[in-house]
C-alpha cells in the first residue's frame, strides 16, 4: 500500500528533468510574449533575443532526441544563449546610460554627475527605457536547460548492455 502511494525513487530524477524542460519551454514562451508586446524589433540588434529564443527552442528539441544523442549540442546552444543573455543585460544598461542626458530630470546635470551615480541610475532604470535584467530570463531558461541535461543521459547504464 505504502509502496503504491509513493513514487518510486528512480522516478524522481526523471520528474525533475521533465519539470526543468517544461520550465524552459515556459520561459521561452513568456520571453517571446514579452518581446512581442514590447515590439522588440526596431533594428538588427533588437532581433538578437528572437534569435536566441529560436536557438533555445532548438536546444530543447535536441535535448528530447532519444538516447541523449542531442545533449552535447543542446548544451552548446544553451551556453550560446547564456552569452546572448549576458550581452543583453550589458546592452540594456548601456542604452539607459546613454539616455541619461535625454531625461528632463537630468538633462542639465547629467554630465556633472559622478560616474558611479550615472551607472547606478542606468542600472536601476531610473533613466532610459531598457529593463536591465529582462534579458536575464533568457539566461535563466538556458541554465534550466543545462540543468535538465545533467543526468539526462545515463550513458553508463545505456552503454553497459551494448558493451557486453
Amino acid at each position, binding site marked *: 500500500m505504502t509502496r503504491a502511494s509513493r513514487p518510486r525513487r528512480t522516478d524522481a530524477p526523471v520528474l525533475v528533468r521533465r519539470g526543468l524542460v517544461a520550465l524552459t519551454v515556459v520561459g521561452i514562451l513568456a520571453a517571446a510574449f514579452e518581446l512581442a508586446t514590447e515590439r522588440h524589433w526596431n533594428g538588427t540588434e533588437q532581433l538578437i533575443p528572437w534569435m536566441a529564443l529560436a536557438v533555445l527552442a532548438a536546444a530543447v528539441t535536441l535535448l528530447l532526441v532519444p538516447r541523449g544523442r542531442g545533449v552535447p549540442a543542446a548544451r552548446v546552444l544553451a551556453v550560446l544563449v547564456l552569452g546572448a543573455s549576458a550581452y543583453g543585460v550589458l546592452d540594456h544598461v548601456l542604452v539607459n546610460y546613454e*539616455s541619461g542626458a535625454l531625461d528632463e530630470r537630468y538633462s542639465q546635470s547629467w554630465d556633472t554627475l559622478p560616474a558611479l551615480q550615472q551607472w547606478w541610475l542606468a542600472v536601476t532604470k531610473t533613466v532610459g527605457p531598457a529593463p536591465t535584467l529582462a534579458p536575464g530570463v533568457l539566461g535563466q531558461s538556458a541554465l534550466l536547460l543545462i540543468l535538465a541535461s545533467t543526468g539526462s543521459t545515463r550513458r553508463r547504464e545505456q552503454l553497459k548492455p551494448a558493451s557486453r
Partner: protein
Amino acid sequence: MTTTTTRLLTTCTAAALALGLTACGGAAPPPAATAPASSAVAAEPTDSDDSATAEDDETAPAGAKVSANTASEDEIAAALESAGVSNPDRWAEEVVEYRPYPTDDPNLTKLRDNLAKYNPGQETTDKIVSALTP
C-alpha cells in the same frame, strides 16, 4: 550520484566561464552597437536626396519641417537643433530608429509614445514633433 555531481559542476563551470568571456568581449561593442540600427537607416543616400529636394533643409529657414519618415538623420538633427531641442543628434537617432510613422497622423503619435520612454518632458517632445512631418 558522484558522476552526476561532477557533471553538474563541470556544466556550471563551463557556463560561468562562457559568461565571463562574453562579458569581457561584450563590453566593447555595445557603444557602437547602440547606434547601428539608426545609422544604417540614416546612411541611405536615396532618402537623403529625396528629402533634400523636397525639404531643402540645408538652406531652409529656422523652423522648417523635415520628414520623420524620409529625411536623413543629419537632416533631422539639423531641424531639431533649429527648433531649440537639446541633444539633437541623439534625438535624431531615436526618430530614425522608430520608423516608419503613419503618414495620416500629423501629430506623430507613434513617435510621441516612443519618445515618452526616455522621459524627455512635454516641452521637449513638442519641440521635436514641431520640427517634423510624417
